[in-house]
């Protein structure tokens, strides 16, 4: 009897233990569920926060653009209501009180021609550097050389301007401009003006030198990204070095090279202090170059020159108007570049006959 009683007690205790175990298991499960849901939510919450932060960063860019467009538009309202569309086509620049008249055409021309020369000189040389570094040089040469080029890209542009003002201008004056003037100055009006060294030609050359490091770095990276299989295929077909570059590298790297050229163009158009020092700073109708050696003026250099002392509201508004014109030109060039790049990418890359 006592044994059965003991067994009953033992079984009852066991049942109780089981109950306790079950209960504690249940409790642990509940706690686990709550904790894991909390942490998972935390992960999702953190993810959400990250999402919001990155959207904020992107929105900041749009916000900055909107603010710039608003400020420039608001500030140039006065000159556009004063001059209207003539601001884009006029050639005067008179801030004398009572005779105000402002027109941006000479500076648009100056900006485009100096940037044009910069790209015409800078991009082919950059391409040559990039091809040499990615295709032909051994790594013993290409590594230090690329390092030096990236160092050059980091040099502030005003240092190029100072060097051009004190040294380079005399090289161009004595080695290129004077001989051309002496040989053709009397016969061809394009070489007719007495060269001084401070003109849009020198400015274009120095701008070209300034954009070479950046454009060549990007071109080099783009060319290195071309898969080796393309090169091997070309070489195995018996192509020479140049043919390999032409048929295997360029089709792949086309859009990247064009993007690099557009970047260089954008930098050349927006460059201010360098241009102010060496472009000769002509004003008004005299800023439209009649010869290779004429002084000229760009939009940004005129703003840099006159913003400090401009006191009348109309003069200030005219300078902000120049900024608006520069913004429009930059946007047009960027859109054109995008369209060009997208059209090029549509053409398939690969070994071409």
């Amino acid at each position, binding site marked *: 009897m006592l044994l059965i009683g003991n067994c009953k007690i033992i079984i009852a205790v066991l049942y109780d233990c089981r109950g306790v175990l079950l209960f504690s298991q249940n409790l642990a499960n509940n706690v686990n569920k709550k904790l894991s849901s909390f942490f998972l939510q935390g992960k999702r919450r953190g993810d959400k926060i990250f999402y919001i932060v990155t959207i904020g960063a992107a929105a900041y860019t749009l916000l900055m653009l909107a603010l710039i467009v608003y400020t420039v538009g608001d500030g140039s309202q006065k000159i556009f209501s004063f001059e209207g569309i003539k601001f884009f086509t006029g050639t005067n620049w008179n801030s004398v009180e009572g005779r105000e008249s402002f027109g941006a055409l000479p500076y648009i021309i100056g900006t485009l021609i100096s940037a044009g020369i910069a790209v015409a000189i800078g991009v082919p040389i950059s391409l040559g550097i990039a091809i040499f570094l990615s295709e032909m040089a051994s790594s013993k040469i290409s590594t230090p050389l690329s390092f030096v080029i990236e160092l050059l890209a980091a040099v502030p542009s005003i240092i190029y301007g100072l060097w051009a*003002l004190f040294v380079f201008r005399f090289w161009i004056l004595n080695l290129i401009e004077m001989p051309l003037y002496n040989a053709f100055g009397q016969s061809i009006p394009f070489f007719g003006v*007495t060269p*001084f060294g401070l003109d849009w030609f020198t400015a274009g050359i120095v701008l070209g030198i300034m954009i070479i490091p950046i454009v060549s770095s990007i071109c080099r990276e783009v060319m290195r990204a071309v898969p080796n299989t393309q090169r091997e295929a070309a070489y195995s077909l018996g192509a020479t070095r140049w043919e390999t570059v032409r048929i295997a590298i360029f089709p792949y790297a086309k859009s990247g090279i064009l993007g690099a050229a557009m970047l260089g163009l954008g930098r050349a158009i927006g460059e201010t202090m360098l241009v*102010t020092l060496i472009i000769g*700073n002509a004003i*008004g109708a*005299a800023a439209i170059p009649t010869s290779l050696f004429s*002084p000229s003026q760009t939009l940004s250099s005129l703003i840099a*020159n006159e913003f400090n*002392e401009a006191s009348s509201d109309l003069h200030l508004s005219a300078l902000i108007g120049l900024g608006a014109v520069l913004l429009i030109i930059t946007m047009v060039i960027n859109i054109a570049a995008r369209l060009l790049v997208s059209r090029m990418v549509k053409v398939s890359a690969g070994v071409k006959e």
Partner: protein
Amino acid sequence: MRNQRLLGLIAVGLLSTMIISVSASQKSFAQSQVTLNGAGATFPFPLIDTWRVAYQKVHPSVNINYQSIGSGGGVKQFTAKTVDFGASDAPLTATERKAAPGAVQIPETIGSVAIAYNVPGIPTKTLKFTGPVLADIFMGKITKWNDPQIQALNPGTSLPAANIVAVHRSDGSGTTFVWTAYLSKASPSWNQTIGASKSVPWPTGIGAPGNEGVANAINGSPNTIGYVELNYALTTGIPYALIKNAAGNFIAPSLNSTQAAVTNSPIANSLPAGDQTWTKVSLLNSPGSNTYPIATFTYLLLYKDLSTNPRLDQTKAKALVDFISWAITDGQKLAANLGYVPLPAAVVKHDQDTLKSLTFKGTPLFTGP
């Protein structure tokens, strides 16, 4: 982990102690220091900076902070009352005076313009010019150095048959204002087509930024001519020319000849009151046998009732008036060394009269003679 936390706590503690101590010292510093903020023309900046140092030796609690952002910027900040005083090379125009009612103009020093040139073989102070000839050169009507008009003024000098390259200022500047004002007076066609202003549409020539840029452009290439601030020409040794004055003599720019332009000027004895318009004040072509034909005042701008500027309290206003009163008397002794023309006694007296008229909520501030 614990070490990192400890280090972090120590760093925060140090940083906060630094910030607290700096701000505390600044507060006590600010209580004893008076800082006068001014902005304006670049031309008098070296002089004002020298005054700042010299005045602090006499009044250690007064510090002057002058930003040389240009005359245009100075007038703008003065009108907006974001500075205690402004400075401008050109007198306030009618529009500017309307925008800043109650403004007074106090001439602080005198400047002038020298004609610098670089013609190989011709030393300094040799070439002679007249106003009309210079106007024609800068307009592009006279293009060669051996033009008969230039040769007639310099009979003994052999001039090359080279093209003249005229160098002007590319940035807006008070020097340009004086120079174009002189050319407008000398040549009616300049006055009609171009006029006088801090930046004008130059028909020809190269522009360079700043006096240094113009001097560099002139020095760097032959057959050039340009205009620079007088003190710049005197201190850098660039060759400069003689200009015909109203009496018919060819005078070289110097401190004496420019000061004579002020003392002999008829307007010097009838200067307008500080709060009236100064646009008619012209020191160009002053009479006298040894006067240089180009001279200009450069002005300090203040409000007649200094309390209208919310930045100023009684102490600051008094300190400002005391500083200006020192600058136009003792401060002028420092001008000649820097190449600035000291104010003649009559102008100093006139300035003191203007200072006497300054008040702060009705209380006059000037305690000098």
